[in-house]
């Protein structure tokens, strides 16, 4: 690389990291925070004995998983205004991403709940617990342990998917890189630099996943 390129790489680093800190990271965190309650609610709907609820939950998962995230994002941001509903870039992105997390997360949560042995439900009923309390005190804590690895996948995917928000004008990591690239015409350099920053974020998350699994593992003997 020429000295000029080094200069560009260094001087573009802060705008890109700033895009990550002010765009990518808060976007991913807030979408996940909104999406997980949706995921748990949809999982419980799918597990419900009431056919209406179960089908509603199934339909939601099917739509979310069966349509591209980019299309969902465009429907919310560019589509809804034609119906008179105008939503700013940030809330649009959070709506689309959290629904997406809700759909994928619901399947993870549902599988995790089903992985808790039936005897745990029975033991809780037998000491007099209600259904709701059994769920919150006995079943979900055990399901949480099981769902950490697959939910970490969901979260890491989400972090990368937030780059799509650049297409609805959210100023995040990738949009910063794009703007500098267009200005300097150094596409390879800037896009590889953006890729490296995404990768570093995901490395950090993987380390966090390991620590969380260890913490949740403290009661199990293998």
């Amino acid at each position, binding site marked *: 690389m020429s000295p000029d390129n080094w200069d560009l790489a260094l001087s573009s680093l802060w705008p890109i990291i700033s895009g990550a800190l002010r765009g990518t990271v808060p976007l991913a965190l807030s979408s996940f925070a909104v999406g997980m309650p949706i995921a748990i609610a949809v999982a419980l709907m799918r597990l419900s004995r009431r056919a209406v609820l179960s089908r509603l939950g199934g339909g939601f998962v099917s739509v979310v998983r069966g349509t591209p995230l980019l299309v969902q994002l465009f429907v919310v941001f560019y589509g809804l205004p034609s119906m008179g509903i105008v939503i700013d870039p940030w809330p649009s992105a959070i709506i689309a991403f959290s629904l997406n997390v809700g759909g994928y997360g619901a399947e993870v949560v549902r599988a995790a709940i089903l992985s808790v042995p039936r005897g745990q439900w029975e033991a809780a009923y*037998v*000491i007099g617990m209600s259904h709701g*309390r059994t769920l919150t005190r006995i079943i979900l804590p*055990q399901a949480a342990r099981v769902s950490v690895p697959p939910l970490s996948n969901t979260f890491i995917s989400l972090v990368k998917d937030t780059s799509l928000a650049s297409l609805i004008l959210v100023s995040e990591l990738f949009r910063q890189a794009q703007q500098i690239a267009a200005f300097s015409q150094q596409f390879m350099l800037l896009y590889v630099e953006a890729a490296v920053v995404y990768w570093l974020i995901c490395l950090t998350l993987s380390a966090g996943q390991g620590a969380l699994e260890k913490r949740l593992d403290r009661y*199990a*003997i293998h």
Partner: protein
Amino acid sequence: MRSTDPPLPPTTSGRPVLSVDSLHKSFGSLPVLRGVDLSIERGQVLAIIGASGSGKTTLLRCLNGLEIADSGRIEAADGELFDFAARPSRTELNRLRDRSAMVFQHYNLFPHKTVLENVIEGPVVVQRRSRVVAIAEARALLDRVGLGAKESSHPASLSGGQQQRVGIVRALALRPELLLFDEPTSALDPELVGEILGLMRDLAQDGWTMVVVTHELQFAREVAQHVAFIDEGEIVEHGPPAQLLRQPEHERTRQFVHRLLHPM
């Protein structure tokens, strides 16, 4: 009992803790209970024996509403009546369930909670008793079964026998009117069976009312006051163990006892 142990439920009357009348239960088109009558006397240890698939576990689970019978009635000593043909509500089933506590074949301890947390979960969270009192009672019970030093351990670090002792303490801590045991020693290594049966014998001597589904004829003979033999969803015969196990009246009982004693 020692003074620190939770008190036994008061004897309200001489009536049976539970009287079961004509209980029927099918799984789909398969009849599992075909009209079971049973009377569980206060302070009595009732052993239910029978082959696998005979309906004995289903019968036990009908006593606390884990299975809901299709028809038949259960009457409690205080006169409360549960009529299954009338499809009891969830609240009614809870009242039936609250009368007993159950010890499971596979212990079913809560793996994410410590031994002490397992024991106080019911008294504190469900029965809303004072946490301090519940902990004191739990510690006394754990001491009594030799697990006082394990209160902060998680179930996965305990042996099968230790886990089942915790399971029994968890049941006792609820102060139920009766204890239900579903093959409590079947999942244990043979050398650990004795410690659980010994503990159950102590409970019987303390005066607990117990219904025990079991394969342990020895236990039925030495601890139970009453044995019921169930086959194809019916109680074929019941009576004191000496009579039922030594001189059964029915051919089916004779064959079953013979098979258990001479498995080869």
